[in-house]
């Protein structure tokens, strides 16, 4: 059996099974095992299944076990645990409260505070969907109660939630780092400026939108004293400390990303207990929630690793590489093609699924053009971030829709999202045009 045909059939099978709602991990694992079995069975020309069992089992085991048996990847459960602990201790929501107290006097100030809160939440939890889900429960109902337009109240949080993918620590960056074998610390640093750029872009959208249509964000009439503002800023210190420990520690070369995860978790736990905001039960619950979340991410990554090994076995990446080289595609058109692929996939698939499916084919291609994989990682994550709010299946939009129930129709949320999407596209173009934005902090 021709290995290229086998790989294409396996890819097609995965896509069909995905469409049929088969969990991503099972699609990848099942297709990789059957594909590898057939590859080994037909290796000598004739069908010899008895010769295929051992290598198939060894390949499936070694790739999945090696992935989970990793010191560096312990940062994923540790960062996820940090997010849960910080949430239970109230650190993440304090950022939003501080931003609200400082910005409430401005028109649209609460929407801006929501975006800043999302940025702060992301800087601790590293998950876009968790960010949208948590902040959506707090900010959106509050804005709607204050008479904000439903499009602004929902879309600002849906868009703000995507910041979790770029601002470190980001689970997507870690997974990208695993599959491209690039430095996760450098990826984190590369995400800082593009993340902040996106955050400023979202604030600008709200400012312009509210300036042009003041009725969508009525003045609240609420004001806080200077002492209230100072107190709110002081209350946000644990979150700021954690961000400084993570980014400062990695940038200053004090910690590796894994150590930053462990130390920040230790600090969050100690501060939470010292401030009596974290109970032992909440801590245990946080660890259990962490395990469930981590296992559901890792089983996808483990099965994807088997799939990647199978794809490498067939050599289909080289075939695609030859095809593209023969087409003499310029770097510009290559990037346009890659952006289109990710944007289209982002409309239907979840970010982890897209990465594990595409990276085995994309990375050799990108490397052959001599492009920087750290910078490319930022581009990919930005594209995935855009996919989280692109219709018809913007996951973050659905998360917010679930939070608000039937109070706001889905198309109304998407109606607000387009403004944020346009800024996202501008930021994407800037990141692609000026790689320095991503690479300046990495020293690359």
């Amino acid at each position, binding site marked *: 059996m021709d290995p290229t045909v086998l790989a294409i059939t396996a890819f097609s099978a995965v896509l069909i*099974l*995905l*469409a*049929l*709602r*088969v*969990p*991503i*991990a*099972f699609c*990848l*694992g*099942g297709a990789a*095992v059957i594909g590898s079995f057939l590859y080994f069975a037909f290796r000598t020309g004739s069908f010899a299944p008895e010769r295929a069992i051992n290598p*198939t*089992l*060894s390949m*499936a*085991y070694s790739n*999945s*076990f090696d992935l*989970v*048996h*990793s*010191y560096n*990847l*312990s940062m994923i*459960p*540790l960062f996820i*645990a940090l997010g849960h602990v910080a949430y239970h201790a109230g650190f993440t929501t304090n950022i939003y409260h501080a931003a609200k107290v400082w910005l409430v006097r401005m028109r649209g100030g609460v929407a801006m505070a929501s975006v800043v809160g999302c940025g702060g939440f992301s800087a601790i939890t590293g998950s876009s969907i968790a960010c949208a889900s948590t902040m959506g429960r707090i900010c959106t109902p509050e804005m709607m109660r204050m008479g904000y337009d439903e499009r602004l109240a929902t879309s600002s949080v849906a868009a703000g939630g995507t910041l979790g993918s770029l601002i470190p620590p980001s689970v997507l960056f870690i997974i990208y780092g695993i599959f491209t074998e690039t430095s996760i610390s450098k990826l984190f640093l590369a995400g800082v400026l593009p993340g902040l750029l996106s955050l400023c872009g979202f604030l600008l959208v709200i400012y312009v939108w509210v300036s042009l249509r003041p009725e969508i964000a009525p003045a609240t009439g609420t004001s806080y004293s200077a002492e209230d503002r100072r107190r709110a800023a002081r209350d946000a210190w644990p979150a700021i400390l954690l961000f400084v420990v993570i980014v400062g520690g990695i940038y200053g070369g004090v*910690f590796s990303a*894994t*150590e930053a*995860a*462990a*130390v920040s*978790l*230790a600090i969050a736990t100690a501060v939470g207990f010292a401030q009596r905001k974290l109970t032992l039960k909440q801590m*245990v619950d946080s*660890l*259990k929630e*962490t*395990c*469930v979340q*981590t*296992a*559901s*991410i*890792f*089983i*996808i990554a*483990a*099965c994807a690793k088997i799939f990647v090994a199978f794809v490498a076995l067939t050599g289909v990446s080289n075939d695609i590489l030859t095809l593209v080289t023969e087409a003499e595609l310029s770097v510009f058109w290559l990037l346009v093609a890659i952006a289109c692929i990710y944007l289209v996939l982002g409309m*239907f*698939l*979840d970010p*982890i*699924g897209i990465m594990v499916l595409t990276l085995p084919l994309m990375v050799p291609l990108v490397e052959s053009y001599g492009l920087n994989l750290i910078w490319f990682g930022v581009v990919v994550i930005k594209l995935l971030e855009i996919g989280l709010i692109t219709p*018809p*299946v913007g996951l973050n939009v659905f998360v917010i829709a679930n939070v608000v129930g039937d109070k706001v129709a889905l198309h109304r949320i998407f109606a607000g999202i387009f403004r944020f999407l346009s800024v996202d596209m501008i930021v994407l173009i800037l990141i692609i045009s000026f790689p320095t934005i991503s690479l300046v902090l990495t020293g690359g």
Partner: protein
Amino acid sequence: MLGRFETLLLALAALAVFAMGLIISVNVVLRLFGVSLPDSVVIVQELMVLAIILPLAVVTRLREHVSVEVVSNLMPGGWQRWLRVLGWIVGLFALGVLTWAGTREFLKVWESGSFYFGDLSLPKWPGRLAFAVGMAAAVLRLLLVLKDDLLGVMKD
């Protein structure tokens, strides 16, 4: 019975996450004094297997496996229930193979008495055992979930 066992596995996984955080943090502090915990990298690697694989059965029980629902949501309810069954069957195959492969590897290292080179010469079997047990528990839970969903489909 399986439910209790899964709860135990989840508790062990939670302990493993806590232990990983503690070991790495202590190592960072000890580095200031020019020392480190012996074989801490190997210990964290072994704990990772516990933290990741042991909760898989609970993930299955909670139906937390990530899937793409955009196409299936357009289908009638009866079809969707069959698609769920299909998902569990594919899962049984994929995780079944990993259970088989994991058990084989565990028995190999157990019989050979393999260990990691290092200060403590830690044995290799605990991580392999956790992998095989976690996968087997997930397969058992998949069978139960499949049975429940199949009965639901039959009733309809």
